[in-house]
Structures are given as structure tokens and as C-alpha cells.
């Protein structure tokens, strides 16, 4: 069990927990939380591969992680903005009721 697999397993676990949260929770914000978790799991993966990868000096993994953090922040901001907007109009954050786009 070398450390890399450890980190990868943790990342996978985190990812699936985030996914479970996103898929099951009713509240929109908690779905976003789930998504944030999944993103962080990905970051962990990146850093782990960077650290134990063949060329740590290439900094690719870490740079990728940093950029991904920035993007995730932007995404969270917009996502939450949307949720607040929906709440103001539909007075609910319950995902099941936001089905106006129904087929």
C-alpha cells in the first residue's frame, strides 16, 4: 500500500461521498456542497499524483490544483447566486419543486 494509493482511495471516497450528497439531498445548497466536495476530491487527486508522480518539479499538478480552486470558487459563487435568485422567485430551495423545465 504505497502512499499514493492511500491518497487516491481517500480522494475516491471523498468523491463518492460528495456524489451521494449531491444525488440524495433535497436542498439545493447541500447539492452544491456535495459538488464542492467532489471538486476538492479531484484537487486532492491532482496534488497526490503531482507529489508522487515522476516529475514533481514540473509543478503541473499543483498549478492545476490552484487553478481548479480558483475556478471552483467562481463556480460556487455563481451557483449560490443562482440558488438565492431561484429562492427569491420560487420561494423554495427544494430541488424537486424546481422542475419548471419538465419535459
Amino acid at each position, binding site marked *: 500500500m504505497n502512499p499514493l494509493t492511500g491518497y487516491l482511495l481517500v480522494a475516491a471516497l471523498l468523491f463518492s461521498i460528495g456524489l451521494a450528497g449531491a444525488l440524495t439531498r433535497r436542498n439545493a445548497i447541500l*447539492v452544491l456542497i456535495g459538488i464542492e466536495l467532489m471538486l476538492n476530491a479531484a484537487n486532492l487527486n491532482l496534488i497526490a499524483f503531482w507529489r508522487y508522480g515522476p516529475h514533481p518539479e514540473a509543478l503541473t499538478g499543483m498549478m492545476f490544483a490552484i487553478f481548479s480552486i480558483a475556478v471552483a470558487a467562481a463556480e460556487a459563487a455563481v451557483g449560490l447566486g443562482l440558488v438565492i435568485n431561484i429562492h427569491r422567485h420560487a420561494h423554495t430551495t427544494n430541488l*424537486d419543486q424546481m422542475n419548471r423545465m*419538465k*419535459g
Partner: protein
Amino acid sequence: MMQESISFTPQLAASAIARNLWLIPAVPIAASGVIAVLKQPRRKTASALAIGALSFSLLLALIAFAHVLSGWANGQAVRETASFTWFQTGASHVDLGWVLDPLSAIMLVMVTFVGLLIFIYSTGYMAHDENYTRFFCFLSLFAGAMLGVVIANSLLLLFMCWELVGLTSYLLIGFWYFKPAAAAAAKKAFLTTRVGDVFFLLGIVWLFAQTGTLLFYNSGTGSMEQAALTGLLAQPAAWGFTAASAIGLLIFAGAAGKSGQFPLHVWLPDAMEGPTPVSALIHAATMVAAGVYLIARVYPLMQAGALTGGTTTALTVVTWVGAFTALFAACIAVAQNDIKRILAYSTVSQLGYMMAGLGMGGVAVGMFHLITHAFFKALLFMGAGSVIHGCHEEQDIRNMGGLKKYMPLTFATYSIGMLALCGVPILFSGFWSKDAILESAHGWPLSHAPYYMLVFGAILTAFYMTRQVSYVFFGAYRGHGHPHESPRSMTTPLAILAFFAIALGALGTPAWPWFRAFLENGAAVVDFHAFAEPAWLMLLLTSCVIVTIGIGLGWMLYGSKSPAADQPDVIERAAPPLWAALRDRLYIDEFYGVTVIAFYSWWARVADWLDRRVWGGIVSLVAFVFGLWATLNRFLDTNVVDGAFDKSCEEISTSGGLLARIQSGRVQTYLRLLALAVVVLAILLFWSGRA
């Protein structure tokens, strides 16, 4: 392959008049064009235009005649042609052109002069008719067309003017179209001449095929010149005829149609339905003469291959037909009661004489009779016209009588014309021209029958003319109303023509055969000894005998006691069946009615049946099939196609419904599906990777 260029520039004749010969027909035609545009009440201008145009043509014709005369006088025969290429198809090209030679010069002068007189006469005669302008338009068109026929150097141009003449004759005969008889007569005239023209066209085409050109005289290469003729002779046609004689016969058929020879003469008597000037101009002087002129023009072709003095099959046929027509028409003329019909039949018989003269005596004999006949027949017709005019449109001679007292001038000129027609010796031109024909008939090598037929015809001519004169001018006036003399504009042309009826004889006397010399470019030497010729004297004797028998008999039967209007005719009492037959024109019309007309109507019915049953049948069959096909289509369309389509639409909509349920709008269901799909994909990937 450079196409050698055919010299397109018209071969212009030497002299100016020859070059501008085409003006003679062009001006009257132009005049008719202008008149056609004029409004109906513009009567004065119409007649002035027509007469002016024709007098201009007369002037030109006289110049041309003078030119030919001077040419003849100083020894070189004048034959100047001018031709131009009408159209060109590949190598071959069709030329049109006109010719100035003695034959055409004479005809030009005769046609224009007689035409002019008749124009002047008809201003008086047609004064009361409201279609006055239209009449003059047709007349001037006819004059132009006739002059075109006369000057034509190309058979094609001749044929074109020939058709135009046919057209104008139809228009003029049917001028009073509101009269059904006139309309029927016009149609009859047009159709019978058309039958002749068909053969004429066949002849032209054949000639063009053989000789490659239709020009008569074209500096050596013309169809009437020796080179072409020898070629034609060499060609054997069907049934032993040579090409030349076959073509000649075809052209003669055309001429027979137009000149009213035996098989195709039926239309001429009926043509009398037209106004009298028309009958005078067309059915006496000019148009009917066109056929004779045509034969004279193609005479070299007809005569080709004849041994010296001998004759060719074509000419023999012409002679026989001419002789028979002369006799046949004369018989019928005897039993006619309408003044113009008698003259019509007399014209037919005289044309027969001309054809016989051509056939036996050559161009000069035929043409001389044509010229003289043109004058006195025109005179007779105009005389009849003024009689009718005087008797208030009365045409039946039995209702006339004793007009001598009422219309002295007409009576005088009419009697001169009658005497010229009968051929009273020495004094009248009719004698000299008929005498020449009899002389040539007498000398005809093949058989003497035509001679005897012509002699008997002459007797009958004299007989029916005296019958007519006595009916009309002698005895008491049997009509109602009172006749009056015609105005001056009608009587002066009569007088002029009367003068010519007498004077023209001088041209053709054996002593001074000027006419023959002029035509054949021989020397016209004055030799009074010719009169002393025993043959000629014998001929003079026979003519005297003929005339005395004819006139004497006529006067005896009709002249002395003027017959009553209601009583049957003398001959009728004597031989009722013969009279009835003659009066009914020997049932020729009925015969045609039974044969040709019957055949055509039968053929029409057959065609109609074919069309309705056979073609119609096929079309309706096809329609039926398509109908069937359409119904099948509809059935197929509604049940099969629509059915299938509707069912599949249902299918799609139900499956659509199913799919729609998945789009529940809940974001998480989408995510779940996504996740499951990823899992399945990953498993597949690994599984396949591992394998």
C-alpha cells in the same frame, strides 16, 4: 469545302424597261393595298386610284411593246430577262424573274388595255353598289396578279401570281356574298381550279427536280432552253411518256382547270353569279386566257421532241381536249336561257378553239385567237351587262326582247361583237383568228376529226348567238318596267371595243401575217397574192357556208317571230329530251355530284367513323385505364399508406410519452442517470481493456 458562291446579283436585263418591268404588276397591287385601307364611303378615290394605277401600267406596257417592236424592227429578237435568287437552301437556290419578249409584250398591252376599259365600265355599272371601294380593290389586285402571270419568267413566280388570280376570281365571283348562289359559285370556282393547280404544282416540282431551275429563259440554262429540254427528253417517265411530255401534260391539266377545259369547265358558267364587269374581265378576257398563255409560254417544252411538222403526245392531247370542249360547250350554249350563261359557254367553246389552235397550229395561231376573242368577248359581256343594267337586273333572255328600240348603241356594239364571234368572213377579226385555227386543223396530220368538230362547233356558235340576239333585241319587250340606255361611261368602252373587234383582224390576215411574224420574229411581208391561194379560198368558202347556216337557222327559228316568254323554246318543242339534256348541261354537275362528291362524303364519313371509333376508342380506353389506376391509387393511399403512417405516428407518440417521463425536471434524476451511465461505461471499458 468552300461553297462556290452562286452569283446572287440579279442578272439585270439590258434595257431600262426590261429592268423595271416588275413595276407593271406592282403598281396595281400597291393600289389595291391602298384601296383596301380606305374607308367604304371613299368611293371616288378608290376608283380613281385603281384606274390611275392600271393606266400607268398600260403606259409602261406600251413602252415595253414599243421597245420590242423596235427591237424586232432592227432585226434582233428581243428577249430580255431579269432574275434574282429568292431564297437559297444549301447548294440549290430558287430564282424568280421576269421576261420581256413579243409574247409577253402583246399580252401586257391586251390585259392592261382591256382591263382599263372594264375598270371605266364598272365605275358606271357598280355605281349603286355600297361595296364599291372593296370591288375596285379586288379588281386592281386581280389586274396586278394577271400582269404578274404575264411577265413571269420563272414557273414559280407564274404559279404564285396564278394562285393570286385564282384568289381574286373567288373574291370577285363571291362579291355579293349575301347571295348563297354567288358564295357557292365562288367556292366551286376556287375548288375546281385548285384541282387543276395541284397537277400544275406536281409538274413544277417535277420540272424543278429534273432541270434544277424553274426559270424559262436563263441565258442557256433556263428550263425552256435546249439544254434542259434534251435532258428532259432523255428521261423516260411512266407509261411510255417521256419526262417532257409528262410534265407538259401536268401543266396542261393546270391550264385546263384555269381555262375551263372539258373536265374542269363546270365552274365557269356558275361564275356568272359575279357582277358583269367581273365576268367580262375575268371570265372572258384575261383569267381564262391565262391557261392558254401558260401553254404558249411552255410551248417549247410541250413541243420538245416533235419531228419537224409532227406533233408530240402532249400537243395531241391538248388538241383533242380543245376540240371536244369547243363542240361540247357550243351544244350546251344553245339551250341556255340566261344571257350571261350563254356567253359563258361560248367562252368555254372559244377557249377550246384556242387550245386546239395551240395544239395544231402553234403559238401564233392560238395567241391570235386569244387576243381577238378577248376583245369581242369583253364587248359581248359588257353589252350583256348594260342590257341587264337597263332591264333592272333582269338576266333571263325570255323576259327581254325588242331592246333594239330602247338601247340602240348597246344593240349596235353588241351585234358587231356577235358577228365577230360568229366569224363573219373578211370584215370581223373573229373570222381571221378562227379561220387560222380551222386552216391548221385542216392541215393536222393525225386525224381530220378535230377539223369537223371545230366546223360543227362554229355552226352552233353562230346559231346560239343569233338565238340570243333575236331573243334579246328583236320582237316585243316581254319584261316589266321599261329598259333604258346605259350611261356614257358604259357605252364608250363598248364602242372602243367594237372598233377593235373589227380592226384587229387586219393583223393576222394571210396577206400580211404580222402577228405570226412578230411572235416568231419572222419578216412581215405584205403579199396580197396569199388571198389567191386555192387552199385559202376553199377555207373562205367553208367559213361562209358555216356562218350562213348558223345565222340563217337561228334567224329562221327565233328572229322572225319573236318567241313568247312563257312558251317553250322552239327546239324544246322539237326535241324535248335533247333540249332538257342540253339545258341541264349534259348532267356533268350531277355526274360529278354522284362520283367525286359522293366519294368525298363517303370518305369523310369513314374518316369521321375512324376518328370517333378507333382513335376516340383508344383515347377513352387509355382514360379508362388511368381512371382505374387512379382509383387503385386512392384506395392504396388511404388504406395502406395513411394507415401505416397513422399507426407509426401513434407508435412514436406513445414512445415519446415514455421518454418524456424521464425528463421529470428533477435535476437529481438526471445526475443519477449520469452517474449510472459512467459506472456502466467504466466497467465496460475495464472489462474490454482486460480482455
